[in-house]
């Protein structure tokens, strides 16, 4: 018997009692939906608490402190080290932060910025790592920069002065950076580089922290270094006056031809689950590193147990729905006993009859699973949209914008559908076996 014909039989049979079919599918859908929604709470809270509250980058970042050398820890990380780190499997990006070694006196429309320094970052890597912005975007051209969230704040003691205008008002404005260098003859040379502010960094998570940095990319750094002819725009120390000198001449800064040194190097993994493997691999190569992921293991374990618990409760709901499927299929076999008997009498193979009933119960399971999944997604969406409003209304608490109470990853939807399908097949298996055992003679006598 062909599969298409088996489907035709199933379709015909399902049409016979639409109300009962609908109620059974509804029960299965409710069970499946309950399972998905319950488990989605575990996924949502884990995602929000671990990944968002602690921060994506914090979880996936590995701080590199230095590299082992023969004598001691060699804290200098060079370009070849960065290249190696980038080549490690599952490394999404390698970031670094180096101070430009002069103030650059940034001004916007003649107003001096409350600036604590200029930092060179690799914006390509930062884009992948998830550089936190409160407004604007990351630079795409050499003459574009990002400024710190608190760059316009001036402080009165420890408290910021009131009525500080927000930094985002500076978005799109031109900031003048004044690069200085001492010439060979000791004369001071200056160059003003106009740059455009395209992004404002994220507000620091701790109240006492401020970000008043200016973040510049590699293109702008090259312009600065071309002028200063030193690494990181360092200013040459003044030459010692041979005749009248109290102090020895200062150390000469590194020139552009010298090997570069990178500070605050971070390796960003492409997922929290790869952090441990990356850390172990680079540790074997002699790198000293630390990651917060080690401390998050316990939290993840708690969430794993929570998800298993919620999934277990949800599965019980599906099992309760399976009673409905069992009942429906048993009724179907009883109602169709004569038809089955006739089919057997003229040569239907018992396995074909069993397949038809198994197909019918799996169709019920599949329909229920599809309906349940759609409903679960709707509930999840409604919960994520509605709960923050309810919490704000009743408790006057603000929930972060990207906080998720419920999250349904595709794997959860697929596993739940498979569970529903499996339970439906299991529920249908006994009635299906019963159908194959129907006595032909009793069925023909209409004695069943």
């Amino acid at each position, binding site marked *: 018997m062909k599969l298409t014909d088996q489907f035709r039989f199933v379709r015909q049979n399902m049409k016979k009692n639409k109300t009962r079919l609908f109620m059974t599918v509804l029960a299965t859908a409710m069970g499946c939906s309950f399972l998905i929604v319950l488990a989605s709470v575990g996924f949502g809270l884990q995602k929000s608490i671990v990944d968002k509250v602690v921060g994506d980058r914090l979880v996936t970042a590995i701080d590199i402190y230095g590299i082992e050398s023969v004598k001691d820890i060699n804290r200098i990380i060079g370009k070849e080290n960065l290249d190696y780190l980038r080549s490690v499997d599952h490394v999404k990006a390698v970031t670094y932060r180096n101070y430009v070694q002069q103030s650059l006196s940034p001004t916007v429309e003649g107003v001096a910025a409350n600036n604590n320094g200029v930092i060179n970052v690799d914006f390509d890597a930062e884009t992948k790592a998830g550089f936190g912005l409160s407004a604007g975007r990351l630079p795409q051209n050499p003459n574009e920069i990002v400024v710190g969230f608190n760059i316009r704040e001036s402080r009165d003691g420890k408290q910021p002065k009131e009525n500080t205008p927000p930094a985002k008002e500076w978005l799109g404005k031109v900031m003048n950076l004044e690069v200085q260098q001492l010439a060979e003859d000791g004369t001071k040379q200056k160059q003003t580089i106009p740059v455009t502010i395209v992004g404002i960094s994220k507000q620091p998570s701790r109240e006492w922290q401020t970000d008043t940095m200016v973040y510049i990319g590699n293109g702008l750094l090259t312009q600065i270094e071309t002028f200063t002819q030193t690494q990181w725009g360092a200013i040459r120390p003044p030459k010692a006056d041979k005749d009248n000198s109290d102090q020895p001449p200062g150390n000469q800064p590194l020139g552009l031809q010298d090997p570069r040194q990178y500070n605050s190097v971070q390796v960003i993994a492409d997922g929290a689950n790869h952090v441990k493997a990356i850390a172990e691999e680079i540790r074997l190569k002699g790198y000293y590193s630390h990651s917060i992921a080690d401390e998050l293991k316990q939290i993840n374990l708690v969430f794993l147990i929570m998800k298993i618990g919620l999934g277990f409760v949800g599965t019980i709901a599906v099992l309760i729905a399976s009673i409905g499927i069992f009942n429906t299929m048993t009724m179907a076999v009883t109602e169709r006993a004569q038809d089955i008997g006739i089919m057997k009498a003229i040569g239907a193979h018992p396995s074909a009859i069993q397949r038809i009933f198994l197909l019918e119960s799996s169709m019920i399971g599949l329909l229920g699973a599809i309906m349940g999944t759609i409903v679960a997604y709707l509930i999840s969406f409604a919960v994520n949209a509605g709960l923050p409003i309810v919490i704000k209304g009743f408790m006057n608490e603000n929930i972060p914008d990207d906080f998720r109470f419920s999250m349904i990853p595709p794997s959860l939807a697929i596993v739940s559908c498979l569970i529903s399908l499996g339970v439906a097949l299991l529920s249908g298996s006994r009635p299906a076996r019963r159908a194959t055992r129907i006595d032909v*003679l009793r069925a023909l006598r209409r004695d069943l």
Partner: protein
Amino acid sequence: MIEMNRINHQFAIGKKGKERVIPVLHDIDMQVKQGEIVAIVGRSGSGKSTLLNLMSGYIRPTSGEIRVAGQAVTSLSEGEWANFRLAHLGFMFQSFQLIPSMTAFENAELPLVLKGIGLAQRKKKVMEMLEQVGVAEYAGHYPGELSGGQQQRVSVARSLILNPPIVLADEPTGSLDSDNESQLLSMIQHLNQDRGTTFVLITHDEQVASIAHRTITLKDGRLLNAYATGGTLVYETH
């Protein structure tokens, strides 16, 4: 075509442990040759339907051996019997045994579906067969919308659609009026002549028995020799 050797059959009735055994058939030896129309006659309770059920594989004999189309069928499993029925046997029933939720077309089509024959071929074959038995115009009708005669024709179409070498018929005219009975018997005769189909007919109707080449009579579960000659039944003790 069909051979039964020393067939005994008994039913057990009553509760488990307190069953009462009722013997139904005793030492049945009989043969049906290819192309024959054989009528099995006898009074009610003589065991004729049981004999047909044994040939159909719906029940198994308590002892003895049955061969159908050259194959020993006594020890076949249920699945093997299903395949065997589909390949070799056609069935006509007194109460037609059409599936009420299927149209005449779908009922007649059923053996082809069970055999896994493609849709296009099925359509052609079923329409030809319904045409042959004279109910093509009712193809889309459900059994409840057909008369007894029309239902039996659909049943005949279903039993012959796979062109089986043997057709087993249990009181095929039992629910028909005399006109429809005559038409069905004439159809059976034509099929026997044209296709060489072997028919085993269970009946207690003399008119049905009259078309048989040979009549086998059962009495109290035992076989008597009897031949239909000129429409008169003559019993001879075995």
